[in-house]
């Protein structure tokens, strides 16, 4: 059932701050700003037949916090995202997104973006971006107008009426991200969003995502197997082990907020963290 204390989500409504159960605001991570709990995973486990995909996962993300989960392929990262999103239910444990802990409630609060762009090939850029608005009953024309002003910020100006097959991989992924954001959900779940791109486009989009999230903060969980990407996007990085997927360590990333991707990657703290995580990943796989 729809949770009764639901906050107004969608359509870009400003979100109320959510507070801890005990009334005290949870400390935000490095960026500070908004206080409150974005999402909590408490002892979450998921099995598929005999295989334990995910086991004993405890995670907490403050409101507008950015968590990245890094782990080897097939470690259950995607399964975890699917459960947070409400597309799947955990066998054990509890997942709370803002104030919702039912699958349906979570689904209303979470936007999910998989690795492949999965754009609708028959819809142009505006049409794809406006999909969530049309699904909410806004007329086609009005929905397109609403997203039109966002297109420029996503580096898609001049391409509004192109079909997906006329766009580059990086642009398609940006359209996909725009489509996800337009849904106006408070929580963003990104499943290897740049995994299918070449390394140059990938670096470009990592930088772009950082600034996009700075400009429009959302509670974000990004899953990747790329340690650099995890450190660039995340304020906290959780390291996951392979089968059964467990969180083996969490690192707070405290890097200068400004600075380009290239500068950050050379930062001594960045390289130190990266090496630490890489050696940890080697140990758990």
């Amino acid at each position, binding site marked *: 059932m729809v949770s009764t204390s639901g906050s107004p989500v*969608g359509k870009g409504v400003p979100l109320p701050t959510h507070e801890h159960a005990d009334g005290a605001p949870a400390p935000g991570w490095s960026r500070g700003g908004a206080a409150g709990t974005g999402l909590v995973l408490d002892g979450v486990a998921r099995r598929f037949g005999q295989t334990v995909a995910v086991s004993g996962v405890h995670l907490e993300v403050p409101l507008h916090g950015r968590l990245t989960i890094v782990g080897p392929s097939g470690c259950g990262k995607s399964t975890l995202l*699917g459960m947070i*999103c409400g*597309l799947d239910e955990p066998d054990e444990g509890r997942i709370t997104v803002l104030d919702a802990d039912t699958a349906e409630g979570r*689904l209303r609060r*979470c*936007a*999910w*973006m*998989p690795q*492949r762009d*999965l754009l*609708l*090939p*028959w819809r142009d850029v505006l049409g794809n971006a406006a*999909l*969530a608005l*049309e*699904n*909410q009953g806004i007329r086609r024309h009005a929905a397109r107008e609403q997203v039109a002003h966002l297109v420029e910020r996503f580096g898609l100006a001049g391409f509004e009426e192109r*079909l997906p*097959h006329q766009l580059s991989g990086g642009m398609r992924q940006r359209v996909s991200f725009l*489509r*996800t954001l337009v*849904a106006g*959900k408070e929580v963003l779940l990104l499943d290897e969003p740049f995994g299918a791109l070449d390394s140059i486009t990938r670096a470009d989009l990592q930088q772009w995502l950082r600034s996009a999230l700075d400009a429009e903060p959302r509670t974000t969980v990004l899953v990747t197997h790329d340690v650099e990407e995890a450190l660039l996007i995340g304020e906290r990085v959780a390291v996951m082990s392979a089968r059964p997927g467990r969180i083996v360590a969490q690192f707070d990333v405290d890097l200068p907020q400004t600075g380009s991707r290239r500068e950050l990657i050379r930062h001594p703290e960045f390289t130190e963290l990266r090496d630490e995580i890489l050696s940890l990943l080697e140990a758990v796989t």
Partner: protein
Amino acid sequence: MSTTATRPAEPAGAVPSRSRRAAAGSTIRRSLPAVGILVALAAIWEAVSHWFGVPDYVLPSLDRIWSTGVADWPGTLASATWVTTQEVLLGFLLSVTVAILLAFALHSSRVVRNAVYPLLIGSQAVPVVVIAPVLAIIFGYTITPKLIVVALICFFPIVVNTIDGLGSVDPDLLKVMRTLYGGRWATLRRVEAPAALPSMFSGLRIAATYAPIGAVFGEYAGSQNGLGYVMVQAIPQLETDLVFAAIFILTVEAILLFIAVSVLERIVCPWAREGKR
């Protein structure tokens, strides 16, 4: 002199006309093998009928078929073609409508699918040649039994291909739709139905080639006009040339319907041509 006079004007405005000419050229080049085979077959046909002494009631020569066709066009063939064309087109439309409604029903409910799919498959085993006279008994010599026969023959490939198309959507995309406030109706309308169009058109193209056969079956069972009726009348009188003339008209009709469906497909789903040839 005149050629040298027109030449200087060419380079400026030549680009579009030249590219159009190139496109026309490539169309001609592409249809060359088909034309070649047709000419070869026609030549063999003519040779066999003229030089091997095959009687006209067995294999009339092409020129004889042509002259019979021309001679009988105003009296019988024109009105017969019109009647059959109506049956083909209306029957085809009927089958498309029924097939698409069925496909959506079967797609949206597992219960319906399990209940109806065996019936659909079974319906294909019904010998239409036998059912057609029964329909003629029920509905008389009207257009109705012909439409039903055409629809019976045509709907199956459309249903099967449309269902496959509706079910071809990436499961991750369906999940994305759920996170984008997409309910069942929104998903069907904005994702599944457009995604099904290309394979639905594959079914339509197959059905287009069956439709004229269906009309002839219907007319064989009982009719007062139409190309099938002309054949029924002509065969006992050994007017084989008239039979062949009717067959050729049917062939042309099937090809035209096929082309019409293909053109419609290009207009309706231009994105689907991406990745094809």
